[in-house]
């Protein structure tokens, strides 16, 4: 309170509200302070909330990472991926298998799951480079199904529909304090996913402003023109696939470590659609939009259990209504570019100049 001295003590009441207002305006003006305030709120939530709320928080955190990763692919590069959950599955199963067969610690599996998913992202991306938007959507959808069915059918390796149990939880060796086992401690997972989310937000924000981010934007708006201007379309697209997949791989690895159990039914097409919804409805190129989408799509239905049956019905309706009314998403600035000019307004007729 002190620091501003005398005037404060004389008319303390109006001064306090005024100061608060000024402070909030100050925070409101600076983006960094906004983020810091949000982060502080999330930390306080993590310290105060009960296990049920924290569990929902963890879920929202996982889907935020998935959404952020897919926002690179859909929002930044404009490539519609309908099999995105496959990379999540790859990360989760990689973690599950190496943990249960060889006892590899979680901290090695998390980054390697991201790397493996990125490799698969390139494997999927490479042959599909030439495909147009809607073909790409179908191929990625098929890819997602192939991965899921393979996990389901390859019983010797994945135990089929029964899934894999007993995946090692993360442990943290604290110097001088001994090892801390995450076990089933929801709060610990909450803070871990919070850290991962902060990293993810940071990476996505930096990417959007980077050279490659500009390249993605150019490709999204007009691939041919981007290529003509010297953008390496091939490399930029592959990078978008790889990075997007890496996010999902890391999220999958976290999921496996958190739950301790994976099975193919966690990775169905509906999950892919859910992530697409999160990205598109929030605003595909907007980080805040993606987070908002995750909160709306994951958090709300968990809290409103009674209406959970109607969730997908409402999502479907919501997607249509949103496309009709606000195609750029709730918080999006602009979406997949302007409507094609040639279709809406024809080129102006050239003035008739007499040929002399």
């Amino acid at each position, binding site marked *: 309170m002190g620091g501003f001295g005398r005037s404060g003590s004389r008319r303390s009441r109006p001064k306090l509200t005024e100061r608060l207002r000024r402070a909030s305006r100050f925070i409101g003006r600076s983006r960094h302070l906004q983020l810091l305030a949000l982060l502080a709120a999330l930390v306080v939530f993590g310290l105060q909330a009960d296990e049920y709320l924290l569990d929902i928080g963890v879920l929202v955190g996982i889907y935020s990472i998935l959404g952020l990763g897919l926002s690179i692919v859909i929002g930044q590069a404009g490539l519609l991926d309908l099999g995105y959950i496959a990379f999540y599955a790859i990360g989760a199963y990689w973690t599950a298998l190496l943990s249960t067969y060889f006892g590899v610690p979680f901290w090695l599996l998390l980054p390697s799951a991201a790397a493996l998913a990125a490799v698969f992202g390139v494997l999927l991306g490479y042959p599909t480079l030439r495909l147009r938007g809607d073909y790409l959507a179908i191929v990625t959808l098929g890819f997602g199904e192939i991965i899921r069915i393979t996990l389901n059918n390859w019983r010797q390796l994945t135990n089929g529909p029964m899934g894999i149990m007993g995946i090692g939880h993360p442990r943290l060796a604290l110097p001088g304090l001994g090892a801390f086992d995450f076990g089933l401690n929801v709060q610990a997972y909450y803070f871990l996913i919070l850290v991962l989310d902060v990293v993810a937000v940071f990476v996505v924000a930096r990417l959007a402003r980077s050279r490659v981010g500009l390249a993605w934007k150019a490709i999204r708006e007009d691939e041919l023109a981007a290529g003509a201007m010297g953008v390496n379309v091939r490399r930029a697209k592959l990078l978008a696939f790889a990075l997007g997949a890496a996010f999902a791989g890391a999220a999958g690895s976290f999921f496996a470590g958190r739950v301790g159990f994976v099975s193919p039914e966690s990775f169905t097409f509906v999950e892919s*659609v859910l992530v697409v919804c999160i990205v598109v409805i929030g605003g595909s190129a907007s980080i805040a939009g993606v987070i908002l989408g995750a909160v709306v799509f994951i958090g709300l239905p968990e809290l409103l259990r009674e209406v959970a049956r109607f969730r997908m019905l409402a999502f479907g309706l919501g997607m249509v209504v949103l496309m*009709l009314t606000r195609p750029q998403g709730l918080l999006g600035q602009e979406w997949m570019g302007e409507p094609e000019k040639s279709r809406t307004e024809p080129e102006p007729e050239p003035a008739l100049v007499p040929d002399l």
Partner: protein
Amino acid sequence: MEGWGAVYLQQVVNGLTIGSVYALIALGYTMVYGVLEMINFAHGDVFMVGSFVGLLVLALLAPSSSAAAGGGLLLVLGAVFLGAMASCGSLGVTIERVAYRPLRASSRLGPLISALGVSLFIQNAVMLLVGARPKAFPQLIPKQLYHVGGAVFTNVQVIILLASLLLMLALDQFVRRTRWGRAMRAVAQDAEAAGFMGVEVNSVVTLTFLLGSILAAGAGIMVGLYYGIVDFFMGYVAGLKAFTAAVLGGIGNLRGAMLGGLLLGLAESFGAGFVGAHWRDVIAFGVLITVLVLRPGGLLGEHLPEKV
């Protein structure tokens, strides 16, 4: 047992049966793609609705159908097909009018997302209405088995194959010979120019959705009769495979879709026979990816450079 020959023949018969159903659904995808250049993601769900409307009509007719066997059977079948086709036709037209038409001039992904939303909506609406459990589809046609060269097939398979071929032939002739068919082909070639020439583009689009949905409804009934079981999620996989068939034949190409459907049915049937039935879907999607990568134009499609 006549050995391998019989096994091959059996797979051919099974493959052609399911392939002809894929072809019927694929026609809806390919017509819409030809005219609007969009993937109608909700098409598979229209097919699913067709099955359920058929079931509903059957339930309504149930008392009379059991009484009137024989001659009444054709009447009941006719009512089931007509009911399903009429409702799916109007459903398809409504979907286009409400969810796609306002977005026609917008970005590429807009209609796709909207279609995905429609698909989710229909699936979940049906699930909430009839429940998530699969429903038994009454076996209207008394089953007869035929043994030919070691292979076994039923009269239902023969009926499905013949009815599908009939519907496909009808569509093919409609598009090739009638005034409306010519209008469809014109719009598919160049919608703007067709409009300048006096073709009512919007009516043609409506007609396209109507025809596609009618065929899907027919396919829905046939699948119900063939497998004897229907559920709210059946449109997803069937739709995906039908789309694969459309792509395989060359999307936008009617005869391609028919060929693609039959080929995909055969590929699946042989794959399932030799690798294992639970890999059936992997084979279908594998075919899809391979075709798109190696020959994006499909078997009968011409390779067009992307319009700028």
